[in-house]
Structure formats: C-alpha cells, structure tokens
C-alpha cells in the first residue's frame, strides 16, 4: 500500500463525512448543496485513489470513466436543485 493511497484515501473519507454533516445540519439550503458536492468530491477522491497504481503505472480507466460520469451528473443535479430552490423562493415571496 502506497503512502499516496493512505493520504488521499483517508482525505476522501473525511471529505465525505464533512459534506454529509453539513448537508444534514446546516441552516442554509445553499451550504447544504455545497455540502452534498463536497461529499461527492470525497467519493470521487476515494475512487481515483483506488484507480491509482503508483508512479509510472497506468491507472484503472474504468474508475476514471465512472468519476467523469459522476462529475457531470453532480453538476446537473446541483443545477436542478438550484432551479427548485429558486422556484421555492418565488412561491414563498408570493405567499
């Protein structure tokens, strides 16, 4: 097991926990969304760390493809959430 595996793997786990805590506890919707995004970043970090094999060795492309897909899905989910939040605000302002 490489040092890089330790460092980045544990950071990924910490980011996931940090993001989850914010998503559950924060008062503001926007920070909750950022929390969910940080959670996603933690998962991606774990996946890319697992794909890493050491300097000069080709990493696992399947996990890289998964993370690429994940990044695009995460941004579209964030966009939909922001649009929903905007609509929610408009409704509250009207009512």
């Amino acid at each position, binding site marked *: 097991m490489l040092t890089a595996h330790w460092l980045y*793997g544990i950071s990924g*786990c910490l980011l996931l926990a*940090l993001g989850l805590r914010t998503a559950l506890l924060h008062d503001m919707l926007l*920070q909750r969304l950022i929390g969910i995004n*940080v959670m996603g970043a933690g998962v*991606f970090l774990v996946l890319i760390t697992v794909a890493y094999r050491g300097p000069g060795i080709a990493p696992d492309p399947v996990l890289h493809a998964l993370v690429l897909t994940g990044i*695009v899905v995460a*941004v579209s989910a964030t*966009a939909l959430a922001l649009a929903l939040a905007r609509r929610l605000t408009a409704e509250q302002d009207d009512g």
Partner: protein
Amino acid sequence: MTAMLVLDILLVLSLLSLATAALATNDARRSVILFMAFGLVLALAWGRLLAPDVALAEAAIGAGLSGALLLTAVRDQAHRALRSSRKPVHERGRANLRVTLEWTVTLLCIALAGLLAWALAQAFDRAPKDTLAQAVSANLAISGVSNPVTAVLLNFRAYDTLLELAVLLTAALGIFALGPARPGHRAAGPVFDGLARWLVPALILTAGYLLWVGAHAPGGAFQAGATLAAAAVVLRLAGRRSVGLPTGHTLHVAMVAGVSMFLAVGLGLLVLGRPFLGYPPAWAGGLILLIETAAMLAIAATLVLAFFGGRPTPAPGVAEKTS
C-alpha cells in the same frame, strides 16, 4: 520521492482546509468562492493521481460551471431566500435537543469516515486483481480509439454514458419545467467586452480540439461540452442576450441530441444484426466521434440552460429587463 510526499501533504491539507472553511462560514458568497478554490485544488489532485481526463472535467465543470451556477444563485437570492424556513428556536429544551442532535450526527459522520477508511485499507491490502483494467487494455485495439477512458465511456460501457445523457436530459427538462429564465445581465463595460471577444472564439476552438483529441489523449465530449458552455456563460455575463443558445424547436433538438444519436446508432446496429451499441471495429472510431459530437451539443445546451435557470424566453422583439 520526498518532494512528491511534500506535494501530497500540501494538496491534502489544502483540500481539507478549503472544504472546512467553505462549509463552516455562514456567508453564502464566501462559501461558494472557497468551494470554487476547492474544485481547482481538486483538479490538481486528479493530475497528481494520473487522472488527466478527470482533471480537465473538474477544472471546467467542478470549479468553473458549478461555481458560476452557485454564484448566480447567491446573486439572485441575495442571501435572503436560500435559508431554510426553520424558525429560530427560543425554548431552552429545543436548543438542548438541537445540540444533542448536532453531536449525534457529528459522531455518526466520524464513525462513517472511520468505517470507510477501514474498508478501504482492507481493499488496498489485498493484491489488486485488475481484471477490468486488463480487459480494457487487451481490447483497446478494437475499440476505435486509443484513449482508454474514452474507450470505456463510449464503447465498453456505452450503456452507462447513454443513461448518463438521459439523466442530464431529465435535469434539463426539470429546469425547463420550473419556469422562465432569469433576466440577463447588463451590457458589460469595454474591458470585459474586449476580453469576451478574445475568450469566446478561443473557448469554442478549444471545445472542438478537446472533442477531436479525446480519441487518443485526455479530452472528450464532457470536457468539450463544458468548455462550449463556458463560452456561452462568458457571453451571457457580457450582456449578450441569446448567447447562441437556440430557442424553440432547435433548442429541443440540441437537448435530446445526445440520447437520440446514441439510440439511433444502437438501433441501427441492431438492424444490421450487431448487438445494441456493439460497433464493428472498422466503424468504431467514426461512430464514437458522431455520438460524441451530439453528446457535446446536448451537454453544452443543458449546462447553458442550467446557467439561465429556466426556459429561455423566445420573443426577441421584447426589450430585455436588466438586473
């Protein structure tokens, strides 16, 4: 080796402290800007872990477009409305309950991180079998491209990418259904306008390059689509109204382009007696480029729509309300 270790420690510490800072503050704008910085450092980490395709996508999408979306949200809500509707708690009992809840959630999150790290250590201790990675490199020659990530995305696991485009389309339809786009920006001053004149053609050119180069080097439809969307965002910020995003039927065609091209190719191959999305090796390169071009348009259209925050208003004759 030591220099690499120092870099690793610096990257990891910056990531953790930026994420903590972004999540600890109550100032929404500050939080978003710190999150964008976090995305950029994350792109560096992807580069360090030999994932250049992911690094490109992260820099364009994770740091750039997500940041633009979140900043726009901060701007139009002006801090006031993204707060949840939770009423301030006055009674002491409720406040105690809240503290207990916070500690419980925090401890559970720490336990989750510990459990994950333990599972990860177990996985690393076993010798990696790598059967999937080996299968990819063994079949790379017949995939039609030489970049293994593009081969996985558009050939070996093309189903995943087809469904991902369906997810994007669903998100775009949701945004579309939630109401009209927010009003555009004022016309920019001469400095930004001059910058946009240089930046937009360069971004469009870069998108075309990324699309083409994805076959044999880091790049591809996602990165190209995000770069194209970034060009539109720059135009929008400079006060150009339509930013080249078509309205009406043309926009609908662009939104479904990725999914429909994928399905057309898959069904066409079925008619020819091949498996669904099982490209003949001789055509694979061309078919992948065809699908990627359509996917790039769909991704760009979706991301620009997301930045608009709703259905673009058609009537071009109506004077636009500035904000």
